[in-house]
């Protein structure tokens, strides 16, 4: 059992496994970019599928239109996370061990100094002056030395030992927070006509992470209003397009309000609102014979009227027990075209109405255009993990910087012998895993000093 655990632990922190996983995920990602991403019904996917019918069968079967949700990728990523955590632990232990040596010559290092030093230097002078000369050369390469009677220990900047562990733990934290965030985030969009509002609820979201409900319960129920849409706004001298003013309320309490445009979202806790699109909108009322009240409605119209790309919208009501579908479409001249799509018995002809006007419809219905205005499509994202991901990014960046600027190095030197005014000093350099060329550069420094000569090995 202990053997199994040791083998498992060795596998978890295996550097060969890390190389294979990074390489495998990289190749997978390269292949994934060759195929359009998206749901089967998305236009890009359908165009590609019709152009590559044979390949599409394989791609559809393997789910490669959504490659980063497939089990193969998820499992490889989880394995890489576990491997990174194992490596992080190992590096942390190694760093603690190095720092814990505290300048002591451990038996292992003594053995290396006596039997297999990195190199040996002949220095003119007695033991004391030789060791101090070694300390001086090491100081020039930013090492701090402690000189003893017959030996010397030298360390680089102490925080440098924590650089690599910090970087790797930062990566682990990024993995964990991204994964947890993806499992619990909500993302979607709402269309709000200027002057109107919606409630942040299930209908607002296109999709939730699978754990959102169990962990976070329902939605905030906050009210998101668009109080105004400024068309073609220029803010700080830069054209920002259509800019809605958005207000978020909890009952009667305004939690946040402001203009929303790219790089200027509105945030309330983990709820972040961005502007995605805008276009014409209308507010109106519908009178249906037999209904107790008039029916107010608000309708956004994605697209552009002048460019002819505006999309019609439908409203539904009931007349004499039968569902009626009414199509509305804004047209040039600040008017709205109205026609009944179903039932067929009522879909005769169409009418138009401008702001403040009414259109009489078959069946005795009357549709009034109360206001022609704008609407804003707002993306709504609720993701608690974002600030933690940022913090993990900062941690990883700091770790990487420390590891690069102050690579951890240990240098040990011990007098081998002291004869005829010359001292032979054995030197062990521990820096291979962080600074492979350091031993060579140190060797050259000693060789370049007058009164010192590195022995050929």
């Amino acid at each position, binding site marked *: 059992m202990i053997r199994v655990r040791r083998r498992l632990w060795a596998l978890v922190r295996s*550097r*060969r496994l*890390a*190389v294979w996983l*990074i*390489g495998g*995920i*990289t190749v997978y*990602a*390269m292949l*994934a*970019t060759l195929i359009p*991403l998206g749901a089967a019904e998305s236009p*890009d996917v359908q165009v590609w599928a019709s152009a590559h019918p044979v390949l599409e069968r394989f791609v559809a079967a393997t789910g490669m239109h959504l490659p*980063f949700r497939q089990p193969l990728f998820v499992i490889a990523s989880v394995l890489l996370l576990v491997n990174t955590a194992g490596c992080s632990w190992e590096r942390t232990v190694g760093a603690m061990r190095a720092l814990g040596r505290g300048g002591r010559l451990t038996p292992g290092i003594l053995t290396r100094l006596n039997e297999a030093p990195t190199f040996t230097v002949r220095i003119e002078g007695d033991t004391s002056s030789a060791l101090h000369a070694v300390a001086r050369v090491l100081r020039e390469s930013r090492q701090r030395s402690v000189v003893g009677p017959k030996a010397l220990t030298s360390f680089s900047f102490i925080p440098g030992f924590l650089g690599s562990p910090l970087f790797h733990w930062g990566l682990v934290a990024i993995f964990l927070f*991204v994964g947890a965030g993806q499992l619990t985030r909500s*993302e979607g969009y709402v269309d709000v006509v200027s002057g109107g509002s919606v409630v942040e609820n299930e209908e607002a979201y296109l999709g939730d992470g699978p754990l959102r409900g169990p962990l976070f319960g329902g939605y905030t129920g906050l009210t998101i209003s668009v109080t105004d849409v400024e068309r073609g706004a220029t803010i*700080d001298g*830069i*054209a*920002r*397009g259509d800019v809605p003013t958005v207000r978020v309320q909890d009952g009667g309490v305004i939690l946040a309000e402001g203009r929303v445009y*790219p*790089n*200027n*979202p509105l945030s309330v806790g983990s709820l*972040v609102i*961005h502007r*995605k699109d805008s276009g014409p909108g209308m507010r109106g009322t519908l009178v249906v014979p037999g209904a107790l009240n008039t029916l107010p409605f608000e309708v956004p119209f994605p697209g552009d009227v002048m460019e002819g790309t505006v999309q019609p919208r439908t409203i539904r009501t009931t007349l004499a027990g039968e569902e009626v579908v009414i199509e509305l479409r804004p047209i040039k001249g600040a008017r709205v075209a109205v026609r009944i799509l179903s039932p067929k018995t009522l879909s005769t002809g169409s009418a138009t109405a401008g702001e403040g006007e009414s259109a009489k419809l078959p069946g005795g219905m009357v549709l009034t255009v109360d206001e022609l205005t704008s609407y804003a499509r707002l*993306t709504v*994202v609720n993701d608690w993990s*974002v600030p933690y*991901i*940022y913090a993990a*990014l900062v941690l*990883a*960046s700091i770790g*990487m*910087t420390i590891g*690069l600027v102050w690579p951890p190095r240990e240098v040990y030197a011990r007098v081998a012998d002291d004869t005829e005014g010359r001292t032979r000093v054995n030197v062990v350099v521990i820096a291979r*895993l*962080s600074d*492979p*060329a*350091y031993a*060579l*550069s140190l060797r050259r420094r000693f060789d370049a000093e007058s009164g010192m000569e590195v022995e050929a090995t």
Partner: protein
Amino acid sequence: MSMVYEIGFAWASIVAYAFASALSVIGLFFDKEKVRMWAVRGASAGLCVHSVSIVIRWIRIGHGPYIGFYEVASLLAWLSVAMLLWLVWRYRTLSSAGVLVLPIAFLIMGASLLVSKEAEPVTGGLASYWLAIHVLFANLAYGSYVGAFYLSAVYLLREYGHDRRWASVLDKVPPQEEMDGLTYRLVGAGFLFQGVMIASGAIWANESWGRYWGWDPMETWSLIAWAVYALYLHLTLTRGWRGKRAAWVAVVSLPVIVFSLIGVPVVYQSIHGAYLKM
């Protein structure tokens, strides 16, 4: 009027790079150190006038050289030559690396002058200080990786070309181990800069679009390029890959980062496509 000067200085830099390219090839194949040093002087002169062109444009249009193919390609050529000159300043004997760099810089500048030079305004999602941070670290990363590429290419030329006529030119280049070590440090620096580039890009994307990562081809390829250099570091530090093997990895990795910077927006439909309009 200043656009005339801007284009004029850009053309002057192309002429200087072309002149320096020719001299570096002659200097290498005929083993003439004086000729190689004149190539370096030509490259320096080219870099100076190229810098003037960039600065004039920056002042004229109000933003740095990072929107549109013309600006991006021009800056990549500038970085390539600047990194070469830095390496030559540090190791004079690396002047022979000019034969790798200068023809490419000349071709990139030439290509940039064939496309539209109209300035793209900074509007919408581009109007953010994250743009400058993101682009700065992208350029620092590219510069570091290009330096690693030069050193590795020279390393390999010396390893494989020791019996060629021009091989004696490389005798004075720093020792292989030193070049190997410097390559490792440049890749390390590039890895750090690229990590910050990706992080700042993710933060900016969240501010601008409401999501920090969307597997857009540009985002995916920047991660691929980062992973490729992560492989270099792992293979070097933990699997003992040194010398020729490490040099080959550094050499074949550069096309990946170049593709991720300027190839992806051309080949793929990307939300980043606006920044490399031709």
